[in-house]
């Protein structure tokens, strides 16, 4: 199972046949494992990492630090849910340290992102304060280097 998912994690487009060959399992085993992982939400979703800047798309991302006053009984979970239900919030993490929630927000302009923070996040009850960090450059995402790849490195074409 783990081996099959590792292979899939590296390339979500690998077919069951390809994965079967790579892992030495049967095609049926691979299909079964993937289906089960999907059912258990071990596989959450199949996604593509796109470098939108290559397409000239303007996209603004910001990392928002949020300080929270935890609520009785529910702790941070209920306020986290209030926040992660907004589609603008791409990723939401509870973190240790000087603030509590780290939220990655995506919008089409700085204005839009700032507006979301000011109008939706900051006014939430139990949010004590926010700090907004706009992302200036994406170097690496989900383990993939986006820019400055080691292009031009060449091995000798033949070696014994």
């Amino acid at each position, binding site marked *: 199972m783990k*081996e099959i998912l*590792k*292979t899939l994690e590296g*390339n979500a487009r690998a077919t069951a046949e*390809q994965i079967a*060959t*790579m*892992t*030495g399992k049967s095609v049926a085993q691979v299909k079964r494992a993937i289906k089960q992982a999907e059912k258990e939400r071990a596989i959450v979703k199949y996604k593509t990492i796109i470098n939108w800047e290559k397409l000239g798309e303007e996209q603004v991302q910001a990392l928002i630090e949020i300080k929270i006053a935890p609520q009785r009984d529910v702790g941070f979970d209920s306020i986290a849910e209030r926040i992660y239900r907004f589609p603008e919030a791409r990723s939401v993490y509870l973190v240790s340290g000087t603030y509590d929630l780290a939220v990655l927000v995506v919008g089409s302009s700085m204005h839009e992102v700032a507006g979301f923070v000011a109008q939706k996040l900051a006014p939430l009850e139990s949010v004590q304060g926010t700090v907004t960090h706009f992302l200036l450059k994406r170097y690496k995402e989900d383990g993939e280097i986006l820019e400055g790849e*080691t292009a031009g*490195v060449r*091995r*000798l*074409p*033949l*070696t*014994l």
Partner: protein
Amino acid sequence: MSITGAVRAKGPRGAISQRVGQLAPSGIRRFFGLVSSLEGVISLGIGEPDFATPWHVTEAAIYSLEKGQTMYTATYGLPQLRHEVARYLEDRYALRYSPDDELLITVGVSQGLDLATRAILDPGDEVIVPDPGYVAYGSCVVLAGGVPLAVPTSQETDFKLEAPQVEARLSDRTKAIIIGYPANPTGAVMAKGELAGIAEIARKHNLLVISDEIYARLVYGMEHTCFATLPGMKERTILLGGFSKAYAMTGWRVGYAAARAEIIEAMSKIHQYAMLCAPIMGQVAAIEALSSGQAAVEEMVAEYDRRRRVIVKGLNDIGLSCFEPKGAFYAFPSVRGTGMSSEQFAERLLLEERVAVIPGSAFGACGEGHVRCCYAASLSDIEEALERMGRFVSRHSPG
């Protein structure tokens, strides 16, 4: 094995020594020019990892350079590296080598082979080498004044070196056996029981064994047996290990030799005069690799294993029969079905479909009829190469 070609330099005024003159030129030199002149070639002819050295290793070396660690080291190598190697061999194989006088840091296994053969051979001493086998084995023996005795291996027996075949080649002059498993070019491995047969011969005939274990970490679905762990073999074995393949560190030029003190001392004498020491940046990188590179190795091995399965199945599917290689990163399929020699196959495949493989005959007479396909290449390149090879084979199938 065609180690010795025609004697070219004649007479006292020839510039080149007979010893060097008799070495046959590399079996791939011709292909090298050809590959370089073509566009769009996918090369399965490269004998090194396609990964970059794990970043933490490179970073450690950069840091050491910034600190000014750019000097010679002790001839035996940095003490810390010798300690790490000793610890590694003990953890992995329960083998104890003293870092003070039983370990020598070399410039790759390549130099280890050179030192080992020069340290133990007198003119005319014979050394058993597997055929097909890594090209340096026979050549190092010749350069050290010895005589290589090629012992044939074949696909029928998964290219393992068989004890009876070895024994049949022995004479009074036989001094040593060189083995290298997992093997280049075949990907063959030898399990403990099979190595025991070789050990038995070494004991019976009082032979030394040079064991090139550079691919020790690249085994799939089995455990590597270090030859020196076999009963009574530690005293007889010159164990050569390295970083090039497992840690993707070919360009750093660092490896090690482990043997009893008398042999290591002899090797380090040559090393002292001919090399002085291995490069310090490579040694620093090797310390980092050994002390915290294990996760990176395992990740690369898992990736090689996926590619191995793809290429072995792919080759068999297109009609190039291929035994299952359980080590290194080579597949060694037979091309006999096409009616071509290995050289013809490799050359025409390159010209017609732009896929580079190495003719098996470059590794000895018994490599004829096979080609070496290295799967240290991206999966997409491997798949594309298989498709092109499939087209080529079906176009050239007799009948």
